[in-house]
């Protein structure tokens, strides 16, 4: 191995020393010890690499990223794996469990006390990093946008929503537990973020028409559903700001 080859290989040697046990580097490292010129080059290279690594490690992720990941992960973990990917006996057991779960959910739903799925959508909305979004705001969404920003509109009473049209208008969509959720930003004094989904995708109890208010980390949310859609409205303006336009 000549010095040029040794330099080429040692260029991949991490400055934190984690590669010290790798046989590929051993011969090159022996050569570094034997050749002072190569040794000086290697010391400079490692010092430079170490300085760049330290700078890269000093880049701080934006606040809220960790929480958004954890929430998103929990929501998506709830989505069931396809049965055909499981061993047959496991598939049978899973089928029984699914049937039981569906029956139990239906029972809870019928009893009017279940809000688990709309709750998932609400939890997502409360931690969604909407400050980083680049999608169109209400003023780009035609009649619906104008309606949302009209001071006379009550958001919980019959918003003129057409999900197909929202999609065509490149409204931001997010997958929550495998289901499509649309988000619209609009301003009425405070900024608001309205999350919309098909009610069938996020079933709630029979009493879901009654809005449920929640607060978390300086965000306030209200969730409700009508016959067609499930809604979550989020703002930094507090619960009172939600009540004003609801």
């Amino acid at each position, binding site marked *: 191995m000549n010095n040029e080859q040794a330099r080429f290989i040692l260029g991949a040697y991490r400055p934190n020393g984690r590669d010290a046990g790798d046989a590929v580097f051993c011969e090159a490292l022996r050569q570094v010890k034997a050749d002072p010129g190569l040794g000086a080059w290697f010391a400079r290279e490692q010092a430079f690499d170490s300085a760049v690594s330290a700078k890269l490690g000093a880049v701080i*992720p934006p606040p809220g990223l960790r929480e958004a990941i954890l929430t998103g992960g929990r929501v998506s973990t709830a989505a069931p794996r396809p049965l055909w990917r499981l061993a047959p006996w496991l598939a049978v057991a899973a089928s029984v469990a699914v049937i039981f779960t569906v029956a139990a959910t239906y029972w809870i739903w019928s009893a009017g006390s279940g809000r688990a799925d709309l709750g998932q959508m609400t939890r997502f909305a409360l931690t969604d990093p909407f400050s980083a979004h680049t999608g169109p705001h209400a003023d780009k969404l035609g009649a619906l946008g104008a309606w949302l920003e009209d001071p006379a509109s009550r958001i919980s009473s019959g918003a003129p929503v057409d999900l197909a049209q929202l999609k065509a208008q490149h409204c931001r969509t997010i997958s929550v537990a495998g289901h499509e959720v649309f988000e619209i930003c609009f301003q009425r004094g405070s900024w608001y973020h309205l999350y919309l989904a098909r009610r069938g995708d996020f079933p709630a109890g029979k009493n879901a028409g009654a809005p449920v208010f929640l607060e978390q980390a300086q965000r306030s949310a209200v969730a409700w559903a009508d016959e067609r859609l499930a809604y979550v409205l989020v703002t930094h303006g507090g619960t009172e700001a939600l009540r004003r336009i609801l």
Partner: protein
Amino acid sequence: MGSDTFTQLVDANYAPLYRFALSLAKNQADAYDLTQQTFFIWARKGETLRDSSKAKSWLFTTLYREFLRGRRRDVRATALEDLPPDEADPPAPAVDVVSAMDAEVVMNALQEIDEVFRAPLTLFYLEELSYQEIAQALDIPVGTVMSRLSRGKSQLRAILAQRDKGARGNVIPFSAQRLRQTP
């Protein structure tokens, strides 16, 4: 996967993954989404990975694939392997000069490197993956990783040296300033 295990996985990896995403995407919003999307995919599919020690490589691989999927690869990116080799290593700025730079300046310099070199070089400087794991993550041979590291470092040195020269050019040496006399 248990909630605690998932939290540990996130805590151990989300920061380096975000840095890798930022070097690729060149803006915070896309880097944010890429990092989040990577863990979202893990939550759905990661449990199929039997060897948990490979979780880190899996995450970096997935993030890179998501990045590639998210934008159409341009002709330049695919043709870079055909570029002629650099004539010589440009002089590197002194280590203390790099140390004195803001992390943002160094990240911006990394973002200027051609993409085929940038991905392995960023992974190398994150120090999380060995050259072999980088090869697996990017789906390229080990020799190609070494070659791209060498070329990428050359570009980085040149860019940092240029930044340093530019920064020093804006500073007026004290001796050249005319002292204002007070009456």
